[in-house]
């Protein structure tokens, strides 16, 4: 359970959960340019910066993005295919690789579905009711974001480890949490908890409780109200939260690394296996798995953009 790798940071960068720092920041000036008459070149448009400065700013932004975002991504794929396609697929069909992919999917399925339920309940409670300790609960939801993932993992070692709080009891009953699937799932759930709740709280607060009240006064039961009124209203926000939650669950390194125990073919998730293979100089295999994570990131990015557009539309519609 050590973090000796210097690669760790570069693989975890591939996760796509970063907030809205989008590329389109650089686009608006070009639209304005079209409106300007070319004949009046001597009269500079005072509403904006001079052309050379604009050019410089855009170029700087693009250069920065290329070096820090595009280049690493290209390197991942280039290295993965450096010995050809057959070596790439051979690396992916190794039993260890298959087991890591399987485990990652299992962990993602468990943590996403549980966080979906917890997240909806938490967001519902916070946005539709007033109760004592509400602010505290909102702060608590953000805790996993502000704590280092390694600490999140360590918490579970302290709780369920051999010397931990429940350690003796667990050993006596032959229950394995640490260095097994339950431990990895717990750590992942902890780290990914805020995503669904965070996506839903502002949305549900904005929508208020009037539609629910209308449904109830029309004779709908609690469940009917939830499935026919509340859920359809939050579906895009919910999908958005689930998407980001899934990306993080599959890509989580720190917390999982602490609780996994790195048992080959058993408790290695994809990010963990990437590190192990890299340290063993199996670059093609390492980058082949890294490329899967990178593809997940790209897909997440595309779907995220689509969902954000949907969410914006939803807000315009609701804005009366």
């Amino acid at each position: 359970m050590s973090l000796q790798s210097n690669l760790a940071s570069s693989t975890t960068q591939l996760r796509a959960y970063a907030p809205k720092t989008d590329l389109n920041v650089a686009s608006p000036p070009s639209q304005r340019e079209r409106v300007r008459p070319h004949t009046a070149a001597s009269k500079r448009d005072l509403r904006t910066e001079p052309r050379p400065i604009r050019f410089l700013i855009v170029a700087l932004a693009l250069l920065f993005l290329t070096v820090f975002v595009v280049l690493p991504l290209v390197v991942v794929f280039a290295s993965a295919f450096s010995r050809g396609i057959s070596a790439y697929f051979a690396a992916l069909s190794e039993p260890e690789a298959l087991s890591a992919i399987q485990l990652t999917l299992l962990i993602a399925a468990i943590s996403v579905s549980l966080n979906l339920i917890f997240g909806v309940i938490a967001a519902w409670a916070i946005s539709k009711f007033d109760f004592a300790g509400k602010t505290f609960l909102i702060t608590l939801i953000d805790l996993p974001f502000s704590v280092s993932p390694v600490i999140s993992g360590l918490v579970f070692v302290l709780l369920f480890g051999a010397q931990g709080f429940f350690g003796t009891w667990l050993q006596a009953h032959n229950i394995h949490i640490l260095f097994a699937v339950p431990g990895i799932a717990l750590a992942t759930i902890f780290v990914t908890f805020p995503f669904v709740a965070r996506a839903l709280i502002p949305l549900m607060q904005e929508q208020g409780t009037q539609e629910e009240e209308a449904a109830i006064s029309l004779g709908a039961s609690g469940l009917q109200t939830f499935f026919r009124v509340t859920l359809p209203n939050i579906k895009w926000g919910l999908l958005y939260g689930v998407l980001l939650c899934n990306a993080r669950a599959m890509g989580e390194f720190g917390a999982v690394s602490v609780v996994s125990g790195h048992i080959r073919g058993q408790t290695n998730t994809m990010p963990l296996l990437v590190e192990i293979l890299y340290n063993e100089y199996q670059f093609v295999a390492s980058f082949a798995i890294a490329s899967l994570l990178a593809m997940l990131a790209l897909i997440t990015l595309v779907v995220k953009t689509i969902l954000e557009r949907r969410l914006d539309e939803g807000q315009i519609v609701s804005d009366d």
Partner: protein
Amino acid sequence: MTIEVKNIVKKFGDFAALDTVSLKVGDGELLALLGPSGSGKTTLLRIIAGLDWPEAGEVTIDGEDALGRGASERHVGFVFQHYALFRHMTVFENVAFGLRVQPRAIRKDEKAIRARVKELLDLVQLDWLSDRYPSQLSGGQRQRIALARALAIEPRILLLDEPFGALDAKVRKELRQWLRSLHQEIHVTSIFVTHDQEEALEVANRVVVMDKGRIEQIGTPGEVYDNPATAFVHGFIGESIVLPVDVSDGAVRLGGRPLNVAANGAAPGASKLFVRRHDMQIGPAGSGSLEGAVRHVRSFGPIQRAEVALADSEGKTVIEIDAPRDRELQAGEIISLEPRRYRIFAAHE
């Protein structure tokens, strides 16, 4: 269906939103709850609907205890101020909602639901909008759809919370008349909340005037306008001139000078004299007990509205009066005023 509310108390923290309120609504009535914001009128409506619960008191609908039932079991149609239409459903599905969520045993089949929704959309004259979404409708259309949706469940009573509050003045006027004729047609016992006195007087059979969680007066529009029970009602309904007067030995004095009005048994001490704008008799200077200089005249329709600075107050007290146009007033003219009809209330009210 009748509604009876007895001794309702509702508090939000230390604030008493409703302070022992009792009210009876007769079968087929169209009742207005009228008051300024914060008077508790919406809270009372929500308690009757089951969307809020009182700390104490009773609510019975048609003799049946209502507080023992949740909002979904009360069979009450509720129309929200901001419509609260389901934004992801078409107009048709919005109206059909109440029919679709009924327990399977009594739920109508699809054909009957379609027929019923069609009938309701015809009633609110919007059947041509059935495939639109709420965001594609105007405010007035949304409110009529909200009403059709509430009527779909054949409610025992209909409750409307500031139904025209979010609409512009012209649409509001049209909808008022429309609501009144709709009520005559379907005759369901209805209560609507409003802060607009004109709306209450024009639409309702009876008006309940509320202030600070209490009922100030219940009466027909004519009663509350002509015989306001309290200073608040007089000031809130219709435009009033309010003068600080002193009552002693059966005489009413303004700034030490006796006025030509009878105390009518008003308690001695500092009081307020309430006069409607159009109840001031205008005469030539020196002919009445009140005198003032006309500062400004605006004429529109059958009346002229004049700002008059009262002489005794060194021009500090300025009142607005409405006079018929048969005697044109001029700015700068000195006139005398005599209250024709008036009420005196103790000053602390």
